């Protein structure tokens, strides 16, 4: 399979740890187009279990699309995505791999959780109700059990005191913390964080980053994070991927990417971002 060999080459060149035989997430030759525009071009990316991968890059480079495809909010045009060894975008029918239908996606989607830039909490439900709706109705948990799980998570994100408030009465940072709890309540194997601090006022960004920090150090979670917070990406990531025009232009440890970038695009991007800060 040439996809595999390409991936191995990529791994060798990036001088990251040896290739993972059982990655939690595997993008294999994934291409996404909108009309004539190729948003992602033949993407190969493996993410190991418990790995924290940050995705950085200029806008329009396909960063968010990577997460949206993994959350099955977007279809893909070519290639295949695997999660925990199982195909996500495809299913087997009569011995052939075909694009997954909605029923198959519903069997796979619980493995993945996502936190959005705009929070997307349900405005007509309280913080607690937001966190128990899916565990009860999708996972089939009993109400008591779901509430206990939600309460534990709301405590972890520091929002237990506001569990009976509706989202409109919460600040952006508080809403985002509830949204993190809501996603965690499904116990996903992979958490996707899509510019989770971009819609926040500067003074509340810290409280959300602290939650993610705690999540990363105390829980076994595979995380993919699209972010503009370079300092945070550098501090928390196991690996940083720099996207440019639908491809991974460069990837490596935070130290490699931020202290010794090899690619000119990476250098340009980083100096522009650091200048702006």
């Amino acid at each position, binding site marked *: 399979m040439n996809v595999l060999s390409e991936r191995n080459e990529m791994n060798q060149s990036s001088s990251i740890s040896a290739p993972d035989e059982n990655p939690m997430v595997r993008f294999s030759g994934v291409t996404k187009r909108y009309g004539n525009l190729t948003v992602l071009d033949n993407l190969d990316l493996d993410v190991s279990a418990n790995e924290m991968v940050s995705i950085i890059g200029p806008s329009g480079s396909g960063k968010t699309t990577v997460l949206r495809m993994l959350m*099955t909010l977007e279809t893909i045009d070519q290639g295949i995505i695997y999660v925990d060894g199982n195909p996500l975008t495809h299913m087997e029918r009569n011995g052939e791999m075909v694009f997954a239908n909605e029923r198959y996606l519903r069997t796979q*989607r619980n493995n993945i959780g996502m936190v959005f830039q705009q929070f997307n909490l*349900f*405005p*007509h439900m*309280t913080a607690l109700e937001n966190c128990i709706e*899916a565990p009860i*109705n999708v996972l089939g948990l009993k109400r008591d059990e779901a509430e206990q799980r939600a309460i534990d998570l709301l405590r972890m994100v520091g929002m237990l005191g506001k569990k009976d408030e*509706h989202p409109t009465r919460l600040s952006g940072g508080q809403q985002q913390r509830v949204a993190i709890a*809501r996603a965690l309540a499904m116990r996903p194997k992979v958490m996707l964080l899509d510019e989770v601090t971009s819609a926040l006022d500067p003074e509340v960004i810290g409280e959300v980053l602290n939650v993610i920090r705690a999540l990363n150090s105390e829980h076994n979670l595979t995380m993919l994070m699209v972010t503009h917070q370079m300092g945070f990406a550098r501090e928390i990531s196991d690996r940083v991927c720099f996207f440019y025009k639908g491809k991974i232009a460069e990837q490596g440890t935070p130290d490699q990417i931020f202290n010794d970038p090899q690619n000119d695009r990476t250098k340009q991007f980083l100096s522009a971002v650091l200048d702006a800060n």
Partner: protein
Amino acid sequence: MEWRWDFAIEILPQMLGAMLNTLLAAGIGYGIALIVGLLLLLGQRTKYALLNMAVREVVEFVRSTPLIVQLFFVYFVAPQFGVVLSAWTSAMLTIGIHYGTYLSEVYRGGLEAVPRGQWEACRALNFSPARTYFRVVIPQALPASLPGMGNYLVGIFKDTPMLSTIGVVELMHTANALGAETYRYLEPYTMVGFMFLLISLPTAAGLRKFERYVGRALGVTK
């Protein structure tokens, strides 16, 4: 010509009886329109692009022609093609379909008022389509649709005099008949106007209260 109270009181029972028919016509017509509107909305959101387009065209066609012309077509022209319906049936069918197209647009506006992020959150949490609609989308779309829905309830009510033209014995029809019989038009028509006002005004106020109540009950507004 002077206002005659004795005549007004004399025709009052007949007028009130006719009023009941008016309310009945508006109520049944609205009920049909609510359902037709939903069907026309769903008909535009199927997997089949051709069907969606066809339903869309039907909606545009019905919305763009006058109610009274449609009424005359169903009652006077359709029989020439062998479709004979009573005045009431024609009236309810026409009002139901005509206002159904308006209501489908109101529903559509309500659905489009629900941010895309809400649908995406439902998908990310792996909700079934039914749960997505009933637990998340409709509770947010309904409060946005209620003002428009209320408008058309009052609108149908005020359009019922048109039904007198095909012989539905509602308020206007009765006033016409009384006038032709007694040559007194002042009292019957004044009473028609007042009766409409007496129903419309409290209905509009009641609807506004209902909107707030629903908003609160669904937890969307405080």
